[in-house]
């Protein structure tokens, strides 16, 4: 699994450029700038990942901050053997697990409303509403799936991680990742079919007769 330890070469932007990170040389940007850049590029991914990992929306801000402070602390020892997304996801998993445990001990209800999560490109109200509905449906379908399948499905289909990255992030063999993806796709499709079938079923009248 991806972990920290040796030198790192990380793509810091979407262009595919590979930059040395935290080599402490004068050519490398300052640590805070690196952190800022990583935040700029990956905050949304971390936000989505935390949500998918069960961090309640009201806790998202603190969890995000915890993730990036961990990034700040460990960046200098981060290994370049995995992608930044993979590494961030492993941190997200660890922090989400920890926060769930704390929430359990506080008897806190983990589920919560969406944190105003909406695409900033959608200024139109009706489009925004449509997006919210779609997102609610997506969340609802994903909730019906087994967690290990859901994680692979989300990372592959939504976050566009490669099979290799998912394998590293979850610590599973590549073949297992593909297998889970196949099962997850079938489950996702079946869930949609069930919802559509339910939509077409007429409501029963009181007394049980249609």
């Amino acid at each position, binding site marked *: 699994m991806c972990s920290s330890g040796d030198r790192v070469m990380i793509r810091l932007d979407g262009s595919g450029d590979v930059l040395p990170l935290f080599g402490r040389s004068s050519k490398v940007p300052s640590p805070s700038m690196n952190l800022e850049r990583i935040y700029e590029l990956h905050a949304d991914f971390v936000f989505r990942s935390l949500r998918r990992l069960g961090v309640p929306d009201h806790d998202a801000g*603190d969890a995000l901050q915890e993730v990036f*402070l961990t990034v700040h602390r460990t960046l200098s020892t981060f290994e370049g053997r995995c992608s930044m997304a993979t590494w961030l996801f492993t941190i997200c998993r660890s922090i989400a697990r920890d926060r769930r445990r*704390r929430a359990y001990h506080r008897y806190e209800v983990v589920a919560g409303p969406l944190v105003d999560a909406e695409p900033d490109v959608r200024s139109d109200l009706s489009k925004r509403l449509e997006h919210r509905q*779609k997102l609610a449906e997506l969340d609802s379908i994903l909730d019906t799936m087994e967690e290990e399948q859901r994680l692979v499905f*989300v990372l592959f289909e939504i976050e566009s991680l490669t099979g290799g990255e998912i394998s590293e992030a979850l610590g599973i063999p590549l073949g297992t990742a*593909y297998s889970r993806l196949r099962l997850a796709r079938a489950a996702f499709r079946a869930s949609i079919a069930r919802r559509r079938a339910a939509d077409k079923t007429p409501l029963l009248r009181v007394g049980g007769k249609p």
Partner: protein
Amino acid sequence: MTDPKRWLDQGGGGSAEERALLRAGREVTMPRALRKRVWLGIAAGAAGLGTAGAAGSALGQGSAIKGALSMLSGSAAKGVIALVIVGGAGLGVVALRSSPHALRDARGAHDAPSVRNEARSVVEAVPEPIGIQNANPPSTLGTPGVVPRQNDANDLPSRSEAAPSAVREPAPKTTAHAPGPRAAARARSGVSSPAQGADDNVDARLPEPAPEFAASRLREESAAVLAIRETLLTGNAVEALRMLERARSEFPSGALRQEREALTVRALAESHQNEAARRRGEAFLRAFPRSPYAADVRALLAP
């Protein structure tokens, strides 16, 4: 093996409906206000992380450490500090205020109620006072063979414990108990607990793990650490030590424990408490050997 095509890709096999749902998931972004607010908290935390990059032989010479704090040079850190100093408008300043009331007030419509409001993290046992002026350093700090409690594994020195041997890095994992208003009031007022000064039997003076765990208050903790660093920068190491002691009471299992401890080593060194600084620094290095501040602490300890 090669990856299959994604459903959202051309010819990926996803139906229009499936693609629409996945696209909705992909388009989720953080609300802008949350994005800014979280970054300010991160930057404040990161800005508080630097210790003494060029400290050199401060301990050996007993001189004040003049080394520039490495993180201070970062633009983000400067921005945050400038916000605090200038009192710039809006979110930044409000988010960095340490008062819980101010933070509550600052939460606008974008910010759902946080569990931070529900609990303050305070431990029953008030840590031993660190070396303010001529106080003696923790006598058993670094003593071999003393095993810390699991919950305190990341919380360094002032509990008269040896350096934890199984500290988990990097993610902060521990939480503190919320023992009740009396202990909270004690800790906040700085009045020592009756347990203070007790021997190494940590378990005897700490309550069993309570069902309630402290909520994260990273922003407040970040602001506190930032303020401590500012105080150190002005050369007021004694006041910084007092602030560190308060922070230790207020955030006993805070996410910025490493930073706090590194700053403590520096503050002790700057206030010429060389032996205390050395013990604390050594304990820090044992507990966090891979910490990004380890080099700074080593520099402080260098003869």
